[in-house]
């Protein structure tokens, strides 16, 4: 006897594969873009694949742009050299739809603050400074929408850093009093 767990028509329904445009539309930086603008963006981004443990970029490399994880996961690692030995500390593991490296989109010759390494076999969508420049020249409207969102991300980061600093200061002063 065959037990049917799901409607039979589901077998015939075309399962829609997640496209690059779907991933871009979900990303915080590109949420203001219309579907037409997303198509323009889709034409200039780069899709890259990495095998497990392959380095995407290293700490102190010159940053060129950001990556969105379309499949897999990425470890963000801080590298410390002590007694000529390198120590690696995983700061965070990012998953599908997360993005990283966006600071380098606006920094001039900015260095990567950490190393990024593929946790598993991973696919990424790269959006780089030359792409942002091109889109700003070609279609300033899209450029403004992306940079506006980028400013919001950076503003949030600055606020978080200020809050963290205030917390640390408070902890230090309470320790001193104690």
């Amino acid at each position, binding site marked *: 006897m065959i037990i049917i767990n799901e409607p039979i028509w589901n077998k015939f329904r075309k399962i829609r594969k997640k496209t690059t445009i779907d991933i871009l539309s979900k990303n915080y930086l590109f949420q203001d873009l219309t579907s037409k603008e997303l198509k323009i963006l889709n034409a200039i981004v780069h899709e890259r694949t990495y095998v497990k443990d392959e380095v995407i970029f290293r700490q102190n490399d*010159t940053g*060129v742009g950001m990556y969105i994880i379309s499949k897999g996961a990425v470890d963000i690692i801080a590298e410390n050299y002590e007694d000529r030995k390198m120590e690696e500390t995983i700061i965070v593991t990012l998953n599908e739809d997360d993005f990283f490296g966006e600071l380098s989109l606006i920094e001039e010759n900015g260095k990567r603050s950490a190393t990024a390494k593929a946790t598993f076999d991973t696919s990424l969508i790269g959006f780089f400074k030359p792409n942002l420049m091109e889109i700003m*020249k070609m279609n300033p409207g899209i450029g403004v929408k992306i940079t506006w969102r980028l400013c919001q991300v950076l503003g949030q980061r600055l606020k978080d850093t200020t809050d963290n600093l205030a917390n640390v200061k408070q902890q230090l002063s309470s320790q001193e009093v104690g």
Partner: protein
Amino acid sequence: MFIDNVKKERYIRTIAVLIIIFICGAVIFIVENLLISFILAFVINYLLSPFVDNLERRGFTRLYGSIIVFSVLTFFVGIYLYYFIPNSGKHLDAFISEIPKYGKGTIALAKELEAFANNLLNGAYTVNFSESLDSNFLEISTEFMDNLPSHISAAITILLLSPFFAFFMIAEGRFIMQKLMILVPNNLFEMALTLQYQINNQVGGFIRARLLEAGIVGFIVWIGLLIIGFPYALLLAVIAALTNLIPYIGPFIAIIPAVLIALVNGSTSMEILMVISVYFISQMVDVVFIVPFVVAKIVDLHAGIVVVAIIAGAQFGGIIGMIISIPVVSILKLTSKEIYDYYLHH
């Protein structure tokens, strides 16, 4: 095991990219007329891209934008050919029919100069170059006439191929580059992307700046020669504009035909001085206003390197080599700087 596989893939990808570049380069250099067609196509590409970008900004796709720009251009070129070519043709015909006169006149001038030099040297050394000039002139003109059909067919091939290549460069260039970038290994990808962007910007800026410079110089020469009532003003202006593309040496080449025409026509010293002044003013405007504010900002190369590059360019590719030597050297400079920076950090 993992590192081995990644390294193996990187090597394969790097070799694939190098093979593609090598094959494309070899085909361009080996197949006749392809190199010049490609250079012209690049020039058209960099000149027309801003217009296609503008249409893209207004919502047209790149393909439709390219079709519109090329259609408009074809329309205007058609009008130009229909209305202006008969006039320009008459101008050119008149000049060609007078070439033997100017050839003979130049040889006569050479003989006068020779006699003057021999008189001055008083038998210590005999100067004799007019005979070789006479035979060379005959040889060059015979060779030119013999090869005229092949020159015309080559020119037609180039004029048909270059817009064809340019159209695909503008419409599909970005897509092709994106597909080529897939082949670049992950560890070199960011460097390759930055390099491609910088080269594209610098070469584009350089070509636009040089053409603007050539156009302005040609225009000043044309107006200047018209004012002093010198013959073949338009033809000489076109020669001045084209030779101005050759840095440093070009302006000197440009002035030779004008001075020869003046000498053969028996112009007075004052008239010759006025012709030289027109060329001098055009170069002053170029050196004082255009070069420092437009060209020098785009290509940051030392004057010594520029001269060496032009000599090397002339050695390898004649006049075309001289014209393309500067962008080629600036591309090599950018590439070596990027590779140096990359290995400094790895």
